């Protein structure tokens, strides 16, 4: 079962990481998560048995499809394609959005002028941007990734603008007096202050981006999870749709646990030690 499988893996990882700082304290939450996910599976299984239908397969059937797709290699090919697009769109959105957000946050005049633009882009539906990108730039990878990034950039801008407004000028003044180089200023003064905002933008960003990537793939790409879901939608194969969805959710969960959380722990290490 997908859920139990990843649940078991995360249990192992979390205990591994935190066993140095009190194993019992982290074992119980991990156990709770596993039991909770198993409970959901059980409920799903019961419901699927109560209302047997091709449109509502049980966890067992989904698991079978998942194994079949994994064995043929299709699953990994499409997961990889989607993951690549998510990563590319994420990097573009965070870099472009942060630069614009910091500039707007530190220049009042520019902010007043561009603020309506930000609101406009925030409110353009994702679908419109995707369709326009495909019409203007063709059905290619650059248009796909660009469209996803443009959907996410306004969110990053808004978050990072708040971060730039909250910057403490006394650190910048200290850096000016001691003649920090531009690189040192970014690395040691600017980025650590923006870290919580960057983390917030990343968290909400990854979740949003991967959902939009599926739409982009559905509309104009010939691989990826979104393309597969569209294919199985035409075949009315709900088991396959769920198999791909759960597989990708599992991948995102692993990324969160193995990449996002350790990075965040490292970035906030100075906060967590008791005084």
């Amino acid at each position, binding site marked *: 079962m997908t859920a139990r499988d990843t649940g078991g893996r995360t249990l192992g990882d979390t205990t591994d990481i935190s066993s140095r700082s009190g194993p019992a304290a982290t074992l119980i939450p991990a156990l709770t998560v596993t039991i909770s996910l198993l409970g959901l599976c059980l409920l799903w299984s019961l419901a699927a048995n109560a209302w047997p239908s091709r449109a509502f397969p049980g966890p067992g059937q989904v698991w079978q499809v998942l194994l079949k797709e994994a064995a043929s290699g299709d699953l990994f090919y499409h997961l990889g394609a989607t993951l690549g697009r998510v990563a590319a769109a994420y990097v573009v959105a965070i870099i472009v959005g942060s630069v614009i957000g910091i500039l707007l946050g530190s220049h009042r005049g520019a902010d007043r002028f561009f603020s309506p633009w930000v609101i406009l882009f925030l409110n353009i539906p994702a679908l419109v941007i995707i369709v326009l990108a495909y019409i203007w730039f063709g059905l290619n990878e650059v248009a796909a990734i660009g469209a996803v990034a443009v959907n996410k950039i306004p969110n990053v801008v808004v978050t990072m603008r708040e971060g730039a407004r909250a910057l403490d000028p*006394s650190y910048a*003044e200290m850096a000016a*007096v*001691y003649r920090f180089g531009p690189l040192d200023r970014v690395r040691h003064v600017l980025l650590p202050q923006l870290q919580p905002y960057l983390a917030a933008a990343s968290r909400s960003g990854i979740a949003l981006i991967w959902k939009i990537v599926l739409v982009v793939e559905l509309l104009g790409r010939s691989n990826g999870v979104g393309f597969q879901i569209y294919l199985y939608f035409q075949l009315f194969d709900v088991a396959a749709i769920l198999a791909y969805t759960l597989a990708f959710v599992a991948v995102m969960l692993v990324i969160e646990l193995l990449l996002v959380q350790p990075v965040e722990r490292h970035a906030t290490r100075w906060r967590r030690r008791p*005084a």
Partner: protein
Amino acid sequence: MQPVGAAVPLRVDIAEKTFRSAHGVSVTALKDLSFEVRQGEFACLLGPSGCGKTTTLRILLGLDRQFSGSFQLPEGGSRRIAAVFQEPTLLPWRTVEQNVRLALPKSLRAKNLDGLFNALGLAGMRSLYPAELSLGLARRAALARAFATEPAMLFLDEPFVSLDGRTAEQLRRLLLTVWSARPTTALMVTHNLTEALMLSDRIIVLSPRPAHVLGMFDIGLPRQDRNPQAMSALLRSFHQKFPGVT
């Protein structure tokens, strides 16, 4: 070490500095403020609260350029300036040692700081984060950062405020120790007369706002001879010369 005699002292000549509030009211903070600090001298800028001492320091540090007048920093030698601010202003996400080394120019980044950390009693605290330090220790780290850069000119903005009397006293002695090891032209802002009398070679007395120089008070007595009796004698002669100033 800069060559003796080659360096020009700090020369300040600020014609006027005016703040404009959000409601359009303008307040003149400084007016015809001019003084000099001699080579290797520890000078104190003494004045009542809110008279514009910190404003003067901000101008000299290059953090405020909206003023009329001019000033000249020491030339020759390293030409670096260092500052100890009212708050320690250590980067909370860097350790004490990283905070000190980041302030150093690239060529000095790897230099041996054992002596300085030992002198300031920070030897065991180098790998701590600022949040793990008391205010007194954080201020010591700020002093370490300023002295590590071997500046040509050192500015201190009330570096011992909001400390309890004993800690402040201890820190003043530490400041004197590290300063004596490498006498640097220094300008310290304070409203504490006793502190000024204990630390400095010369006190520049400022008027209330808009600040200008009321006069100078030179202390010829070597620092090691400033015992309680000598201090009260200094205090008396200061009050004779500047009757209104506390």
